């Protein structure tokens, strides 16, 4: 209804047959369609047409009827009177999305409302069996307690650093790889596929392999470092909070989890940027090169402006996802070594301290920060368009 209509008249198979058998032929001639219809409809093509469609329609009608909204006032007396097209569309639309809406309401919207509620309740894990709607004890202590705790703010700061560094890193690495793989060469297809591996790898498998690589005892990185790079001793990468390298204090574990996140998410940035590069027109670049512009200048003045939009979008998306990342950090370091981010704090409050109230309050504040980022982004887009 919204798309594709202009081409309808030109379809050859629609023009050459009587309209009635058309759709059935469409369904039957498509091999996969035949498999789908296998059950109820008879196999003889000439006999299929109308009855099967009728039956199907009747089935839909009965499936839809029970909805109490279906017959508003005036149309009630004539039970068989068909609904107008737009009203039927409205009804069908609502019925079709209802299972999705139901499961999302129950398992996402309701829980979120519960977080807001729990954040203001004095409730611990042991209280769950006695939790009833009519004996709730409200308190503001959770939120004020979390707000005033230095540990929360240090986790918030770590989260911001982590999310900003890994989203910027992922976009830049993705850009470099996308540019390097832009022009065809033998074996490009296979390399493109290989580059996607970190994104596809199950997170548990990826972190287990990284932990082994970085293991101080038998990990490859430490073995190489000690053997060939002249390190005095193996480094426990994932538990070292900071280490002096020359004049700098390097947050080792934090850098490791950032590197992991960049490694894991840059393939996605690569995909996005490659998709954008594929639609960048060649002729402008060719013209610029004929006029004597080198590749670097072509990149700065022609390609980068075209890619800026998708890179900004990616950076924001990656920031939002990294901001709430729990799995990668928890699996790599468990939150030790200066890598305690907000998501890990929520988990610690919930499981270790068994305090539902403070866990919810932490989560609520975290969501608030995310929403602030989204709002700033939306505002920036709006200002740009204005």
């Amino acid at each position, binding site marked *: 209804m919204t798309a594709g209509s202009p081409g309808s008249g030109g379809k050859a198979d629609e023009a050459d047959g009587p309209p009635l058998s058309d759709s059935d032929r469409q369904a039957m001639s498509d091999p996969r369609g035949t498999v789908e219809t296998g059950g109820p409809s008879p196999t003889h093509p000439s006999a299929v047409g109308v009855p099967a*469609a009728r039956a199907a329609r009747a089935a839909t009608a009965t499936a839809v009827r029970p909805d109490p909204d279906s017959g508003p006032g005036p149309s009630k007396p004539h039970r068989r009177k068909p609904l107008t097209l737009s009203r039927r569309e409205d009804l069908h639309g609502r019925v079709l999305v209802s299972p999705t809406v139901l499961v999302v309401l129950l398992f996402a919207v309701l829980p*979120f409302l519960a977080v807001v509620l729990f954040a203001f309740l004095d409730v611990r894990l042991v209280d769950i069996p006695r939790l009833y709607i009519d004996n709730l004890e409200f308190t503001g202590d959770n939120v004020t307690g979390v707000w005033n705790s230095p540990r929360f703010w240090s986790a918030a700061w770590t989260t911001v650093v982590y999310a900003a560094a890994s989203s910027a890193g992922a976009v830049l690495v993705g850009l470099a790889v996308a540019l390097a793989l832009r022009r065809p060469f033998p074996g490009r297809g296979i390399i493109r*596929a290989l580059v996607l591996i970190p994104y596809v*790898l*199950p997170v548990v498998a990826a972190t287990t392999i990284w932990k082994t690589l970085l*293991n101080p005892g038998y990990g490859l990185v430490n073995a190489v470092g000690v053997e060939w790079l002249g390190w005095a001793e193996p480094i426990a990468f994932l538990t070292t909070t900071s280490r002096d390298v020359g004049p700098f204090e390097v947050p080792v574990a934090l850098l490791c989890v950032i590197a992991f996140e960049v*490694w894991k998410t840059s*393939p996605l940035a690569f995909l996005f940027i490659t998709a954008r590069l594929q639609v960048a027109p060649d002729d402008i670049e060719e013209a610029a090169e004929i006029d004597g512009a080198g590749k670097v200048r072509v990149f700065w003045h022609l390609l980068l402006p075209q890619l800026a939009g998708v890179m900004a979008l990616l950076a924001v998306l990656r920031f939002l996802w990294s901001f709430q990342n*729990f799995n990668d950090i928890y699996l790599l370091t468990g939150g030790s070594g200066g890598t305690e981010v907000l998501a890990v704090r929520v988990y610690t409050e919930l499981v270790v301290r068994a305090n539902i109230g403070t866990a*919810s309050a932490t989560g609520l504040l975290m969501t608030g920060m995310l929403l602030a980022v989204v709002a700033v982004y939306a505002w920036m887009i709006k200002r740009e368009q204005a």
Partner: protein
Amino acid sequence: MSATDSKRRRTRRSAEDRVLGVLRFVVITVAVIVTAGPLLYGFLLSIRPFQSVVAEPLQLFPSPGEITFDSYPTAMAEYGLGGNMWNSVQVAVATAALAIAFSVLGAYAAVRLRFFGRNAVNVVFLGVYLLPGIVLAVPLFVLLNRVGLAGSLVGLVLVYVAQTVPVALYMLRTYMMAVPSSVEEAAMIDGCGRLALIRRVVLPLALPGVAATALYVFMIAWNEYLFALLFLVADRDRWTISLGIAQLTEFSVPTTVLMAGSIAITVPVVAGFFLAQRLLVTGLTSGAEKG
């Protein structure tokens, strides 16, 4: 343009081209080593005896005599990863089936039908898509405990469905928009009802997209760790494979066994992804991403 002028320009540009060519080669080489290397490393460790790994960490490739696949049966049987894997298969298949069933209907409605509340539905889904999983985990943990579904795979499947349906719906929408509405209109004129229309016309035409989406949802459920950790950790028999491997890393389990487990859970996912790569990439770059 005089001959010398153009010659100078060409040499300058060819120097730049040469540097960029080298740079390009370096980027590609490093990218391949860094992305594919760890997986290869994991595989190579999984087929070596543990003692050899500890004694010779620098020797990447096992000597022909020491190759052993013993870690795999050890991981599956002795450490119980086989049972965990079966749990994961059940959970992931159920999640994919339910999420697809729901989102096919929802995506069709979102693409083709104008109905009251359509925009509100879109906004809610976007919200769910952006809400942090860890934040939802807290109340889900409490509520599922309250209704006695915590620790059951059914509860886990329901949570996964709610988490994946928005993404699946978003992906399917892209594929369904490609189905020409004229075909559907023709079927409607012939008296095809709405459900029959979806089943006989839309679904077959969008089948590759539906398959790719199902695979994507399967992968999300297969890889998921946080909710499995929160809901199932107490009951070892119900652990999913991701949880099982993660729990094993807490104990002094030989790394070769852990690598075997990691490779075992990776193979189906990577194989599936590369089979459906083209379709998945289209879906992903249109903005359907989770995690």
